[in-house]
């Protein structure tokens, strides 16, 4: 007999056969069922229901129950007990219930934080990195050099209603004065938390350990202060782990516990509930670590665009708050400018009509394109939103600043500055897309070309999309059963679009760019001229050895003109050979521009 019960610690991985995972979003609660079938973990069913965190329901578990009920109906396995809780299996042969129930949440705006540090480019930036990495939205960053007067900073702190504050500053044994001054700005400003009037605002102090007693004195009563190891014990070292862990704990203990129904949800779940973006970051890090690759993930939404990257083990996440495809579409048009958006459009379009279309999309965010022209325009906007988000990400994901450099006399004419970006498109192995405009594009070729045009991957880059946004579920699953998470990620979560092969460099249109040869599942060879694109069909499960020999002035990763051999993977689109050079140049003259875009679209059969 199956009995519902609340478990806090998950069973050991070898006993986990049936997993129910939910992601409580702002509007929809999405549930998936993962089962061990013939020794392999597969995502078998999916259900969704409206999120019920707002009035009149004000109980997030109702939405969870509804979405899991859909799983129950589809699978035939009883998952919901009569009292609405998730049933656990009592034995491996029990036909009802699951072994593990896990959940993520971004309902009610997710986790919103304010961060502070002494120097904007140093400890404040580390604090921002810790908060973003934990899945938070950073509402503002206060620093002693942020060009604002103290009264302006206090005013701003008072205006914000963060879920928690992360305060950093000073190296261990370093500055105490300014970090205490920051505490003295925050404490009297008394920022009020979003949820609950009686709830004490959590403040995490991750600064100079010597300043902790003084900071504790400043915050005194009225705040829930916790002290964790310094984010920057020395300027040469960044230690984000303890602060991120504490953010997760505080998110559960305070923020979630005060949100409607979350106390029940926490009791139901077998693992700590994670902020949705934090879970996405975790699965991306897991996949990068297990496969030994560099990966970038993007989630483009209506209001914001999240970019995640893992390069050489260093994880970074950015949230571009004003770049999205519905609420923020006007901002994308303003920031990118209409000519830059329209450079991707091959059809004649009236700019005035497009502006009306943009405003309509903003006030009716759930509408989808009804005509080919509308689709082409929306995808052009998406290219620019993605490009701008990636640029912001590159500027944020950098090496540490304020670090002593080691030089030799040979560096006289090449004194590289600190703070160089970690993002290197040549080293990028996997690019994962999610979000409506990418996941639900009518043709996979459209998704692939949008990714290539906006991210401009170099060398060999696998393209994939998370069609049903399963990455959050798998992120939290990775903390319980990493192997199962990896297996489902590879087999069911990602739809591999193919591999993009593109050399770095620029040349004159029509001149030779590179020669290529495929051996294995497909045997073929050819040459590409500058400005050309070509699609080589290569099935989803097929792999080939590919040798690319670039011309002088073009680089595939081994140096200009040097041949590179790699194993390439096919996909629903295939192998995309891109000889447009980097950065991609579009002709300025209108007729030539439209002809060029048309040629690229035809090469990939994008709108056929």
């Amino acid at each position, binding site marked *: 007999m199956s009995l519902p019960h609340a478990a806090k610690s998950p069973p050991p991985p070898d006993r986990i056969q049936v997993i129910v995972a939910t992601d409580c979003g702002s509007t929809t609660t999405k549930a998936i069922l993962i089962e061990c079938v013939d020794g392999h973990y597969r995502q078998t069913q999916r259900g969704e229901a409206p999120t019920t965190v707002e009035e009149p329901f004000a109980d997030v578990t109702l939405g969870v129950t509804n979405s899991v009920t859909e799983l129950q109906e589809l699978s035939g396995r009883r998952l919901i007990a009569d009292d609405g809780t998730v049933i656990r299996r009592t034995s491996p042969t029990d036909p009802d219930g699951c072994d593990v129930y896990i959940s993520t949440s971004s309902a009610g705006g997710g986790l919103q934080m304010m961060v502070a540090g*002494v120097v904007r480019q140093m400890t404040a930036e580390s604090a921002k990195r810790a908060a973003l990495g934990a899945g938070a939205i950073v509402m503002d960053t206060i620093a002693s*050099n942020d060009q604002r007067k103290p009264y302006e900073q206090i005013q701003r702190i008072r205006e914000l209603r963060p879920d928690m504050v992360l305060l950093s500053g000073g*190296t261990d044994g370093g500055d*105490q004065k300014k970090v205490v001054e920051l505490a003295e700005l925050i404490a009297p400003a008394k920022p009020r938390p979003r949820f609950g009037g009686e709830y004490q605002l959590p403040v995490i102090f991750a600064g100079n350990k010597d300043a902790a007693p003084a900071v504790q004195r400043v915050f005194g009563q009225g705040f829930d202060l916790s002290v964790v190891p310094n984010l920057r014990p020395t*300027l040469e070292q960044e230690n984000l782990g303890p602060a991120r862990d504490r953010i997760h704990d505080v998110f559960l203990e305070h923020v979630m516990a005060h949100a409607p129904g979350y106390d029940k949800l926490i009791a139901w779940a077998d693992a700590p509930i994670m902020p949705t973006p934090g879970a996405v970051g975790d699965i991306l890090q897991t996949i990068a670590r297990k496969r030994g690759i560099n990966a970038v993930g993007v989630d483009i939404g209506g209001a914001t665009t999240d970019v995640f990257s893992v390069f050489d083990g260093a994880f970074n996440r950015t949230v571009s708050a004003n770049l999205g495809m519905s609420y923020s579409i006007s901002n994308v048009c303003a920031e990118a400018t209409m000519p830059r958006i329209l450079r991707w459009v091959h059809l004649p379009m009236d700019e005035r009509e497009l502006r009306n279309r943009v405003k309509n999309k903003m006030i009716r965010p759930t509408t989808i394109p009804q005509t080919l022209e509308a689709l082409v325009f929306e995808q052009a906007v998406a290219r620019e939103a993605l490009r701008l988000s990636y640029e912001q990400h590159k500027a944020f994901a950098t090496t540490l600043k*304020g670090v002593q450099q080691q030089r030799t*006399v040979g560096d006289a004419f090449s004194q590289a500055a600190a703070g160089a970006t970690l993002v290197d498109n040549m080293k990028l192995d996997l690019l994962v897309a999610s979000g409506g405009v990418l996941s639900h594009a009518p043709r996979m070729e459209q998704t692939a070309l949008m990714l290539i045009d906006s991210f401009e991957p170099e060398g060999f880059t696998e393209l994939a999309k998370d069609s049903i946004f399963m990455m959050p579920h798998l992120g939290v699953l990775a903390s319980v059963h990493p192997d199962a998470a990896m297996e489902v990620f590879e087999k069911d979560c990602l739809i591999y679009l193919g591999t993009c092969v593109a050399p770095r460099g620029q040349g004159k249109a029509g001149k030779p760019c590179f020669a290529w040869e495929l051996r294995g599942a497909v045997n073929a060879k050819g040459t590409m001229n500058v400005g050309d694109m070509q699609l080589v069909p290569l099935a989803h499960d097929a792999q080939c050895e590919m040798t690319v020999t670039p011309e002088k002035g073009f680089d595939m990763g081994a140096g200009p003109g040097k041949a590179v051999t790699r194993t390439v993977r096919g996909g629903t689109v295939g192998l995309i050979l891109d000889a447009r050079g980097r950065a991609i140049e579009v002709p300025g003259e209108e007729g030539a521009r439209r002809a060029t875009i048309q040629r690229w679209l035809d090469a990939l059969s994008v709108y056929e």
Partner: protein
Amino acid sequence: MPLPSLLAQVAGAENPATFFTPGKGVLAASLFVVAALVIGSILWARSGGRVRIRRIAGLDAVDEAVGRATEMGRPMLFVPGIQDMDNIQTVAGITVLSRVARTAAEYDAEIEVPCTRSLVMTSAREAVHAAYLGAGRSDSYNPDRIYYVSDEQFAYVAYAGGLMVRRKPAACFYFGCFFAESLILAENGNSVGAIQIAGTAETSQLPFFVASCDYTLLGEEFFAASAYLSGEPDQLGTLLAQDIVKAIVWVLAVLLALAATVAALTHSESLSGLVDAVRAAMGGG
């Protein structure tokens, strides 16, 4: 003696004094060309012409160095060389000091400037005071942190070295004229873990700075720092004119070298004559 009589006497003398040396006409013309280029470039820059200066990592790193000192709660050390204000490198160093001091004022970081000359000390105090005023932090300005040490090269170096070991500055700046003390200062700074930025036109000292500092401004970069930091059209225009003149001189040098080579190989009298004429006009033998 009345002026007309004096001029008549000079003109009638056996070796009359002359205002112009006829053989130096080309040099005079060059002077006018250079002056015209400088004025033209300044006017062009003032009228909104865009002068692009390539990024100088050492100057961009000033914020980083000051930030490091702020986070570590340690002072910064600025050494304006060991020469007096009559040395153009010292003047350029004081310009950089203004920028460093302004950033220090904004970050509320402590800056210390030991000087080898009293006049340099006075100028440095003026520059730092102005920077603190500009940043709206005049109350934080402390003139006692800018002081005279000694005119003697090694007495000064001994003091500066001791200061570094005792106070462990988080950032050291060396901008000015340096000689044998360059390596001693830079090695001391390196050993205490400071970010170091140096700038000098003394070519013999540059290798030492490059090897032991984080960033080094090499010769011309140091003099361009003023224009780079201020962005003023007058300074940018002057810099542009200097670069144009350098390019002209470089092209002429190459052309004349080629002409001299061809003349030597072909025994061309016309080319030899041209080369000799230019050599003579430029004051060569």
